């Protein structure tokens, strides 16, 4: 297969290219090939994980739920006017970037950290951060520890080869403390070791810690998530380079979600907000101005998004709050968080 298949394929692809058949979809109308294609098929193709609770996971009815899934729905509402017109394409950590590069998906909303390497090397662009994550610590309440700085000499359960391992080592070196790592590859095994008391703390991404704590049911109250977050993992929405119009749509749809939360526009009150006198809300909902036109969309684009999906706060409450994760740095900048929307005018 490696030789036969690949050789034949390369030959076929080469033939197609040399004969000039494989022309990239030419941009007409909106100026965005991705948007035109999405409109033609009346659907956007959204790469998700499909396996991460709170972000994208099918519920018992098989409907994709989570912050990443709702992000896809918001883009669909903006681009084709209907939040249900999303084809969720499950991707793995290995094939997620290929899927985006090859056009199998229009955007990737898959708990992917925004780094220089990925933007610089892979031909991809991060449109916005939908979740600020970071490495945290979970300890037992009975230990009495309330700060990571008080954990000198602690044993910590951690998966080997992860960025978590690196972050902990850096944190302890900087704070001139000592720790003993217990490295276990298998996740349930690792969690079992922590619960049975083999280590004092369990460390991984804070969102995963909170979800694990939540999954313990009545015993969740015995576990405490320490306030320190010791590394930066901004998880974002990505598009291909080379289609700036599409990048604008994805980025500004997200900014519209945050603006709506800032202005108190929700799915429930968006209709009554149409008569609001606040110029920001009037521009956002397309009553005044031509913001949608500037993006190559209908002026009602943001109205559609908020009406069908809600604002960012509603997305959060629907998907992340039930996991027992506090809003903290993911809150609006006015409430002490990092989500700051540039002006929409």
């Amino acid at each position: 297969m490696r030789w036969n298949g690949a050789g034949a394929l390369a030959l076929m692809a080469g033939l197609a290219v040399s004969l000039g058949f494989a022309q990239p979809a030419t941009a007409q109308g909106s100026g965005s090939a991705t948007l035109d294609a999405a409109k033609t098929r009346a659907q956007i193709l959204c790469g998700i994980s499909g396996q991460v609770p709170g972000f994208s996971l099918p519920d018992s009815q098989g409907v994709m739920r989570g912050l990443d899934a709702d992000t896809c729905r918001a883009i669909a509402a903006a681009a084709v006017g209907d939040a249900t017109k999303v084809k969720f394409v499950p991707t793995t950590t290995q094939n997620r970037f290929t899927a985006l590069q090859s056009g199998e998906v229009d955007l990737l909303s898959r708990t992917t950290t925004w780094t220089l390497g990925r933007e610089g090397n892979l031909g991809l662009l991060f449109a916005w951060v939908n979740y600020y994550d970071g490495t945290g610590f979970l300890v037992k309440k009975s230990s009495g520890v309330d700060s990571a700085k008080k954990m000198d000499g602690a044993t910590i359960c951690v998966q080997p080869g992860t960025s978590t391992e690196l972050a902990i080592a850096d944190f302890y070196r900087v704070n001139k403390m000592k720790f003993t790592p217990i490295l276990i590859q298998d996740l349930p095994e690792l969690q079992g070791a922590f619960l049975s008391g083999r280590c004092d703390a369990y460390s991984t991404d804070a969102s995963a810690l909170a979800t694990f704590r939540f999954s313990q049911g009545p015993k969740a109250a015995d576990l405490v998530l320490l306030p320190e977050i010791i590394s930066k993992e901004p998880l974002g929405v990505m598009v291909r380079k080379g289609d700036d119009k599409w990048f604008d749509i994805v980025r500004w749809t997200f900014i519209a979600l945050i603006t709506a939360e800032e202005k108190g526009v929700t799915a429930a009150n968006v209709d009554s907000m149409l008569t609001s006198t606040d110029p920001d809300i009037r521009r956002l909902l397309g009553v005044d101005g031509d913001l949608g036109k500037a993006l190559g969309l209908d002026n009602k684009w943001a109205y559609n998004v908020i009406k069908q999906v809600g604002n960012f706060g509603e997305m959060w409450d629907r998907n992340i709050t039930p996991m027992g994760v506090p809003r903290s740095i993911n809150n609006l900048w006015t409430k002490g968080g990092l989500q700051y929307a540039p002006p929409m005018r």
Partner: protein
Amino acid sequence: MTDATTAPRVRPPASVVGPWAWLRANLFKSWLSTATTLVLVYLIGRGLLGLIDWGFVNAVWGVPYNAQGVPDTASCHAAKGQGACWAIIADKYRLILFGRFPFDEQWRPAVAVVLFIALYVFSAIKGVWRKGIDSPLLRTAAAIAVVTVLATNVVGWLGGILGLPTVLGDILHLIDIVARYASGVLLLFVWPAIGVWVVVLSAIFVLMAGGVYGLSPVAVDSWGGLPITLILATFGLAFAFPLSILVALGRRSTQMPAVKMICVLYVELIRGVPLISVLFMASVMFPLFMPPGVNVDKLLRAQIAVILFAAAYLAEVVRGGLQALPKGQAEAADALGMTYWQKTGLIVLPQALRLVIPPLVNTFIGFFKDTSLVLIIGLFDLLTMGKIALSDPPWQAFPTEVYIVLALIYISFCFAMSKYSRGLERELNQARGR
């Protein structure tokens, strides 16, 4: 009649035959054997009682749900260790079996699974594989219809890439549909079992994909669970087996060195790399070779990878059977003036294949389970759907129950396969078994 001359028939004493004698002879022969028996009976009994307690008596069969539909698993957490939490199965069984298929339409994958099982049962009935009407005309017509279906699909696919005019596409589509029906009907007459397979598999495909007969279309990305496992395994082995016979014959060919070399290369290359890497090629590398905007369906890519991989392994099994056959059989066929295909089809293969039934079934069962590797390219088969059901935070603490159910499903399919193969062996080897 001759009562006076024969002694009355007396049953042998219970200490020599019958269940008691068997027990005495096998389980209580000496004090050591008696002690072992008692200890084992105690251990097995305790284990069984514990299992019954865990699985039935103390089990939690359902949990309450709050207004948002979130389950309250407190009773399951309370019973953990003493009783099973079957509530997770009650909550998730449709997700595990049918994946993200639209909830209201899940009767379609359910019927598809029933059709698959019916197809297996049908294929196992004695005598259904006999040929039908022996008419060269019908045979030729069926062959033309099948080739037409293949040709229209390949041309249609290439046309999609090259941008052929739509009128031509419509004509192709029409020819394709006519040829499909024709090939199904003709095959039913010429070779009934193959015809049934073609018709049933087409019905399964229509049920899953929809888009015709008033069924709403469902994209392959929403398929999941048991249908994916059965599709990959059934199509994979149904295509890999004939391919493997050709490859095995090619590898033993003495007249065609080029064909032989291709077969050797194919088998050695595929066997030299793990299935995961073949799937990975199909999923990650393949799209990069294609012109932008051309997508070959992910399931089809995985399916072709599975077929190519299984065929390489099966080819070596079949070759083992060919090697084991005494040379005299082929020479006798040559002496009778048979052509190569007559010799192979009537003399060599029937004997060679029956020799290798155990390793063939071994490979079949192995591949049935290997299909769960498609997880790495983002296809969600039965096992993966089980894992996804377990990712739901309220249920994360109850993996045992889900894995038990998955194991039972896998065991029932694999055991049926091995049971059938044992029956087949007995029947085919009656002549040798004396």
